[in-house]
């Protein structure tokens, strides 16, 4: 009876310890430190990143990795209020590219969920054998250092003084809303949807907050559906600035549409003319997954960080007609003067027809100028 109790307590304690080990990710850690194949090593690393165990993830990297812990965490978890800091890793698809006995190259396609939708990040990682286990060699972050300097910037902004509601009718008028004009509109049929796209210009001398809506009409003039451009437009347009827009109508067939009613609504808003973001080295190419992309780099020409940037690209055919508008978010913050790469998808049929393109950048900064 006495020995029975002792045995029971010992078994129960061992079970509880095992449970706690499993609970604390011991199994994953074990898998990470005992990865028998390159794919297992990358998969285990992704699991740690998904669970935000960055220190353990860093500890599992190969010693030849040219990065320190802070840089690694900044690379995978984001920094400076960037979109990555508001994202979490949902899935990671691992596929081997090639390898030998001691080294391998593994492609990982990370899918991050963020406040603006899912974002893909494709990386080719080198993996190295370390005794009986494989370890990932994490590359050094490509952030270039900008020397300390003083950057003179003349900040230009617009403030708006609204109407005083205590005044009698006609006693004080509201300032007119900005004048905007839809300079082009094109309706195209895409698989499973109708798409309205084009460009809109702020013709006024004050900034505008803009929304473009479209209503598809039947032959009898009755509406089929109304949609807005949502985030496929630059909502804040400075004087004489031109933005592309795209409005999707999923589930609508082109042959049901007789005409389209467009509506551009502009509001007068306070705005800043800074920061200026240059879009450099734009070129059409193929990405790692062999998709057509428009690549380039964003350069924040001001002296303060831009937290979140969105790239909007309009594509034109031989006749200068807008044939597609695509967008993409950049999950790194734009630090002053540092080029940050971007890539936006182009459908294959559009890539075959496009003659020219134009890129503009939407941005969000926590510290307003």
């Amino acid at each position, binding site marked *: 009876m006495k020995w029975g109790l002792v045995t029971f307590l010992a078994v129960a304690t061992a079970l509880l310890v095992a449970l706690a080990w499993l609970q604390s990710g011991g199994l994953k850690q074990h898998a990470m430190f005992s990865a028998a194949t390159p794919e297992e090593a990358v998969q285990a690393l992704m699991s740690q990143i998904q669970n935000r165990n960055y220190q353990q993830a860093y500890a599992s990297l190969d010693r030849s990795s040219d990065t320190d812990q802070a840089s690694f965490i900044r690379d995978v978890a984001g920094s400076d209020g960037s979109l990555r800091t508001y994202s979490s890793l949902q899935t990671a698809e691992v596929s081997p590219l090639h390898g030998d006995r001691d080294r391998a190259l593994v492609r990982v396609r990370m899918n991050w969920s963020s406040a603006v939708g899912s974002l893909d990040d494709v990386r080719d990682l080198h993996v190295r054998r370390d005794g009986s286990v494989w370890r990932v060699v994490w590359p050094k972050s490509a952030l270039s250092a900008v020397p300390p300097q003083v950057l003179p910037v003349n900040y*230009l902004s617009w403030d708006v003084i609204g109407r005083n509601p205590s005044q009698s009718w006609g006693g004080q008028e509201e300032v007119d809303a900005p004048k905007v004009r839809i300079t082009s509109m094109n309706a195209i049929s895409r698989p499973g949807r109708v798409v309205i796209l084009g460009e809109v210009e702020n*013709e*006024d001398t004050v900034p505008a907050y803009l929304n473009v809506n479209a209503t598809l009409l039947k032959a009898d003039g009755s509406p089929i559906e109304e949609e807005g451009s949502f985030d496929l437009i630059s909502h804040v347009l*400075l004087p004489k600035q031109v933005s592309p827009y795209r409005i999707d109508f999923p589930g609508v067939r082109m042959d049901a549409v007789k005409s389209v009613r467009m509506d551009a609504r502009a509001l007068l808003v306070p705005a800043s*003319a800074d920061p200026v973001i240059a879009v*450099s080295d*734009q070129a059409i190419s193929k990405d790692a997954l062999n998709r057509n992309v428009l690549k*380039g780099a964003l350069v924040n020409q001001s002296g303060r960080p831009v937290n979140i940037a969105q790239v909007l690209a309009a594509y034109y055919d031989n006749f200068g007609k807008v044939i597609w508008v695509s967008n993409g978010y950049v999950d790194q913050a734009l630090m002053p003067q540092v080029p940050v790469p971007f890539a936006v998808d182009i459908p294959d049929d559009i890539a075959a027809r496009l003659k020219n393109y134009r890129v*503009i950048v939407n941005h969000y900064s926590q510290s307003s100028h």
Partner: protein
Amino acid sequence: MKPTVHRSFARCRRMAGLALLCVLPGWARAAELHLPAAVEAGQAFSVHVEGSGEASFYLFGPDHVVKRTVSLGSDLQIQSSDVRTAGRYQAILCDSSCTAAMFDVKAAQPAHLSFFLHPSRVPVSSPGSIDATAFVFDQYFNLVLTPAAVEFRVTPASGTGFSREVSTRSGVASMRMDSTPHEGRVQVTAVLGKVEEARVIQQVAAEACGLRMKAVASGSLVTLETDPVRDCSGNALPEGTVISFTKIDESGKSTVDTPIKKGVARVQFSVHGRAQISVACGVVLGNEVALNGKL
């Protein structure tokens, strides 16, 4: 007061008056009310009521109702506060029977102007682009329907001003005019007797005209700066107007949308090999600069 409130109030007033007249009998023996056909808003007046004893007096106006007990055989005082709103009034006097009469209250002398000047911003040299409209009200904010002469005095920032007199029609005077070729504020004042109301609009530069840039090379960098950006009348485009620079060279295409600051737009590109650089402001294209790989 909103028109819907006016309508519902008028409907209630009519129904109340009708009910009062229907319910109370003895119409044939009613004391008579002799009211003036028209009264000026805010002017008190009195009416002699014949008979003896006491009676109830009701006054239904466009925006209020008055009930008062009056002594017959004396003067019935209508106070100025009872007839401030222009419109049709109905007076009912009831003792053992009721009698009714209608009269109109017309707006008093002009005392206020509500002045609208549109738009608040207008491009220079645009014909018929400025619209000035003045509404004439009396001191109780009744629209004055009798014709009155409103003078519009136009004072541009530069150049000589002018004035134009317009007679009101149904209480409204309006005029259209062209914007002048020079940017800046234009003050328009509506004047009626001693009443003045001023508004300001901003005449702004039109589209860019003759947009030109020049390139200055320094190492592998080229700095591009526009000439002062002006419209076809020579007015400087406002600060903050976006100028788009596009460079195409061996590294691809680069674009910068930069605002005009201190009259010009400036941008810097790094150049690799032969480059073609263009400039635009909205839908207006400027000159192109070709660099042959020698900086």
